[in-house]
């Protein structure tokens, strides 16, 4: 008995130390997040004001100004990216899950996976070659195009996975009612997975809102506000990059506040996504 209780003690100590190690390592993993949030809050919150959201940046040396151009620019870029990326991504996802598996579908899936892992700076280069060069200049179109390419594979894969979760007998129930395949899919199956599809779209939007590299030589930037879709356009990430690397204190403050706002928006998008997933379950 004594031997058994000794072993028992050893087991408890082992158990306790394993739990401790796990806790410490998990804590280490989330520490950066905590520091990012708190540091951004400390450095950025001071610059939060109505002017930050409504005013254009002032020239170097002048006090004040805001990032209205970058915020508006990011929204415009996101709209352009979404209006190409979402429909194409959705179509791609539907094709991946519904078409009979053959060479085409396998090639499509491989391409989508490869596209996910292409570095975003390369996507920027591609957009530069196919949009900026023919249009002879940086533009909102080019930036939105580059971002849409980042979006497509994310939307496609999430849509595919959501559709695959629908059991085949639900599909067959629709066919058994005497309805053509496409009607069953578009009117009965897809409406039922709305929440899941929306989740994928929101995640893709969150990802794209923070992308900087694809915009550097596509949308470029400007500090005058919106001048049309054929003109260079500011965006939060690029503006943060420019201001953070400048030597002007007002600009550097704007960069901190911009970073805080950007992180907050992405955080919010993720929260909404989680809420949708929870409600679906």
């Amino acid at each position: 008995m004594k031997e058994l209780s000794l072993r028992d003690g050893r087991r408890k100590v082992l158990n306790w130390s394993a739990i401790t190690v796990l806790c410490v390592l998990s804590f280490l993993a989330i520490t950066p997040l905590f520091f990012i949030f708190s540091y951004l809050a400390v450095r950025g919150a001071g610059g939060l004001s109505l002017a930050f959201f409504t005013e254009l940046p002032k020239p170097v040396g002048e006090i004040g100004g805001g990032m209205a151009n970058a915020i508006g620019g990011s929204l415009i870029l996101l709209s352009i990216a979404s209006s190409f990326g979402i429909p194409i991504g959705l179509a791609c996802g539907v094709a991946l899950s519904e078409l009979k598996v053959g060479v085409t579908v396998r090639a499509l899936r491989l391409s989508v996976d490869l596209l996910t892992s292409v570095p975003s700076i390369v996507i920027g280069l591609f957009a530069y070659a196919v949009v900026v060069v023919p249009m002879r200049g940086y533009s909102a179109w080019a930036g939105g195009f580059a971002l849409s390419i980042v979006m497509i594979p994310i939307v496609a894969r999430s849509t595919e996975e959501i559709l695959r979760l629908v059991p085949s007998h639900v599909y067959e129930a629709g066919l058994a009612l005497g309805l053509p395949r496409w009607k069953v899919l578009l009117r009965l199956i897809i409406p039922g997975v709305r929440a899941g599809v929306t989740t994928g779209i929101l995640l893709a939007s969150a990802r794209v809102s923070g992308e900087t590299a694809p915009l550097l030589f596509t949308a470029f930037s400007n500090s005058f506000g919106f001048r049309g879709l054929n003109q260079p356009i500011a965006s939060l990430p690029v503006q943060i990059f420019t201001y953070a690397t400048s030597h002007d204190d007002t600009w550097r403050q704007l960069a901190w506040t911009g970073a805080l706002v950007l992180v907050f928006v992405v955080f919010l998008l993720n929260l909404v996504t989680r809420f949708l997933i929870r409600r679906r379950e």
Partner: protein
Amino acid sequence: MTDSEISLRTEGLSAWFGDHHVVKSISLSVSRNDVYALIGPSGCGKSTFIRCLNRLHEEIDGARVQGDVWISGDSGSENIYAPGSDPVAIRRQVGMVFQKPNPFPGLSIFDNVVAGLRLAGVKRRSVLEEVVETSLKHAALWTEVKDKLKKPGTSLSGGQQQRLCIARALAVRPKILLMDEPTSALDPISTARIEELVMRLRSEVTVLIVTHNMQQAARISNQTAFFLMGELVESGPTSRIFTKPKDTRTEQYITGRFG
């Protein structure tokens, strides 16, 4: 039996999954308003057989069908495997209820019942409302759900969901209803309700029901066919199959010696 009383007739119906021959040249006649039970051990081809009767089998990759299936409609008898025959049109006449309850996710009870009609172009609200009420009454679900038609179909219990699926199938007014082990995922009380319902449905539709449960076949059907390894061993009035089977394999199966 005159031809007009026959609701469905198969002639040399065979089905394959790839090279696997799962239904072997079945010829069977089902009369109007029969409840026809298909019994047999797992993997004997009975589910595949009824999935050929609404041309659902061919929707699976690598699946193939050979033979003829005649169903009698308003304009005489029609072979659903005739060249040029449209599976979509056939499925309007031959409804199906599946093993697992499968209401369309995200759709309300109301929308589930009218899915078939609405997507076929029926738009008038009054018509749809009437169909919902009659179909749910036929499926013995109306009193339980009449005050919550806007709730999602998936919010119901398993047994209620299965009756909702029956209502959904009945809403397009099929002449034949195929049921693929409709109670195998349900508790005994829900099972009893569905069995009662099937017996009452006789006056409206011809029912073909696949079941693993021999007591169920004995309780609700008037005709029974026994399948074994893709072949039809024996068919006839349920009472005779269960009391005086002609084939020793049928006798062994119904007395529980295998399967």
